[in-house]
């Protein structure tokens, strides 16, 4: 029972960050109808940015994490303006191919800059776990889950309570009417992509110290983000949060009770099963229009 609770706690820590990844992607995918395969690259960017800020800039840990988030936002905005804006009207195939190209270039660029050896990101927390009854949690992990929850809360506030958030929701629901109402769609897209990327970078900055930073860490992150989005429903923030937690816990339980080698398969299996049993969930046969 204790082991189970421990897995649950670990799963929550992971889940919180998966939720961040998922929220960012569900906004991007949902609002911009963009299959952002390179979402994980911002995750990687976040981890490396934290590393760089600490190793080269010598700032303290918390500032480094904050810097990583800012870098993520900036990189996202840049990417949207330069690469994605011109392709707005192209078919989904074309956009996907560009995404993939970007993915390859970024990842291998990181490989060149940082080398293939994983980097460990130093953090100020003591390593001895805090013991809360039957479970123990490392202070770092506690920080991660609390920060993740904080960011999730902030995201929710942004979407629900600010003008920008309202404009984003309007664009998601009905782009044309939103445009007619004066919403600057271009700006919303840039903001959405920047925001989503910032969250991904945050996830990377938070998980980097736990797991090490290496160039291909984003690949799995991308796919897990998609799995969270598919679980929670496109554009659904609460769904993404819940989905992230479910994925985190499922992975931990799977790794603990089934086999740790197949841990990453959980996300894949979710994608396949959910899409099979609730086929894309968007348009059931009876509402299809010819």
């Amino acid at each position, binding site marked *: 029972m204790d082991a189970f609770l421990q897995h649950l706690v670990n799963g929550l820590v992971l889940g919180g960050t998966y939720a961040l990844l998922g929220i960012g992607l569900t906004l991007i995918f949902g609002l911009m109808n963009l299959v952002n395969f390179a979402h994980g690259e911002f995750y990687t960017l976040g981890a490396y940015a934290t590393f760089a800020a600490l190793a080269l800039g010598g700032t303290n840990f918390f500032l480094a994490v904050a810097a990583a988030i800012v870098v993520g936002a900036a990189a996202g905005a840049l990417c949207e303006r330069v690469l994605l804006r011109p392709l707005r009207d192209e078919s*989904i195939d074309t956009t996907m191919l*560009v995404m993939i190209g970007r993915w*390859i270039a970024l990842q291998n660029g990181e490989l060149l800059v940082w080398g293939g050896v994983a980097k460990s990101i130093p953090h100020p927390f003591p390593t001895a776990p805090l013991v809360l009854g039957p479970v123990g949690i490392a202070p770092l992990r506690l920080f991660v889950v609390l920060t993740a929850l904080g960011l999730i809360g902030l995201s929710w506030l942004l979407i629900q309570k600010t003008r920008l958030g309202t404009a984003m929701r309007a664009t998601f629901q009905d782009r044309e009417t939103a445009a007619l109402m004066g919403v600057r769609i271009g700006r919303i897209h840039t903001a959405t992509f920047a925001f989503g990327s910032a969250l991904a970078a945050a996830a990377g900055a938070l998980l980097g110290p736990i797991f090490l930073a290496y160039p291909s860490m984003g690949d799995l992150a991308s796919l897990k983000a998609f799995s969270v989005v598919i679980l929670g429903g496109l554009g659904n923030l609460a769904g993404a949060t819940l989905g992230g937690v479910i994925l985190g816990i499922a992975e931990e339980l799977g790794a603990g009770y089934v086999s740790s080698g197949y841990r*990453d*398969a959980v996300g894949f299996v979710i994608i*396949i099963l959910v899409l*099979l049993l609730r086929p894309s969930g968007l348009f059931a046969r009876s509402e299809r229009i*010819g």
Partner: protein
Amino acid sequence: MRRLAAALGAAAMLTLPLWLASPYHLHVVIMAGIFTILALSLNLLLGYTGQLSLGHAGFFGIGAYTSALLALHWEWPFWLALPSAALTAGLAGYGIGRLALKVRGAYFVLVTISFAGVISLISINWMELTNGPLGLPGVPAPELPGLSFRTKGAYYYLVLAAAGLSYLVCHRVVRSRLGRAFVALRENEPLAESVGVDPTRTLVAAAVLSAAMAGVAGSLYAHYTRFVSPEVFLFSYTVTMVIMVVAGGKGTLLGPVVGAILFTALPEALREAMAWQWQMVAYGLLLVALVFFLPRGIVPTVASWRR
């Protein structure tokens, strides 16, 4: 004039081992041939039917493993192992094909990536079957009574024959009622349905053919390198295939061939000049550039220049 060029080209290809004696160059040509088959197969799904399948390495790997395991554990001759590889991969293709119907566009891409991901993890973790990351060494080379295909020269002819056959299959399919159905689904599915094109049967046919062909490529690869490991499922193989098809010209017959030859030869040529990581960066940038500047690919663009 074209006839002469084609005849010369054919003669060159048929006598290649005689004038390209370096084992290294032969190796490159053989790999180009295997990738040609892969690119042609992906093109059926990506180019003609318009389904962006990013799990194609999965079919390649299934073919490679099936062929290797049959030859190693059950001592099947290559000539039985190859068709079995095609069959197994084709079965996987059937599954993907049926999925493609329920799950479209971006979701289909995700499912195909997930499929390849799951298969990859299985090959790494199911030690009893696949020997995990250690891989399966010692896959036997094909043999005929009196003739062994251990030498690169002999293997070249095997791959040439297979590639030629693959091209012929694609040619026949594309020019047929089935090929028209592929394209119709891509261009305007509701309209295609209105005149009786069955999306289920058509997509499944495309997926099975495509997967089986990739399985053949996998088998050829396994018996050539005589070693199979989970690396066959690497996403970079899929990416390379996609680049070959897109750069060469998706939805054309020659496009994938040109793409395959170009992108097998290019890395080898660049090998001296730049480190592998730079190559991949270049690939990524190239893909982006292609999409922006040469969206239809090399073959169609050249064809329209000549007009």
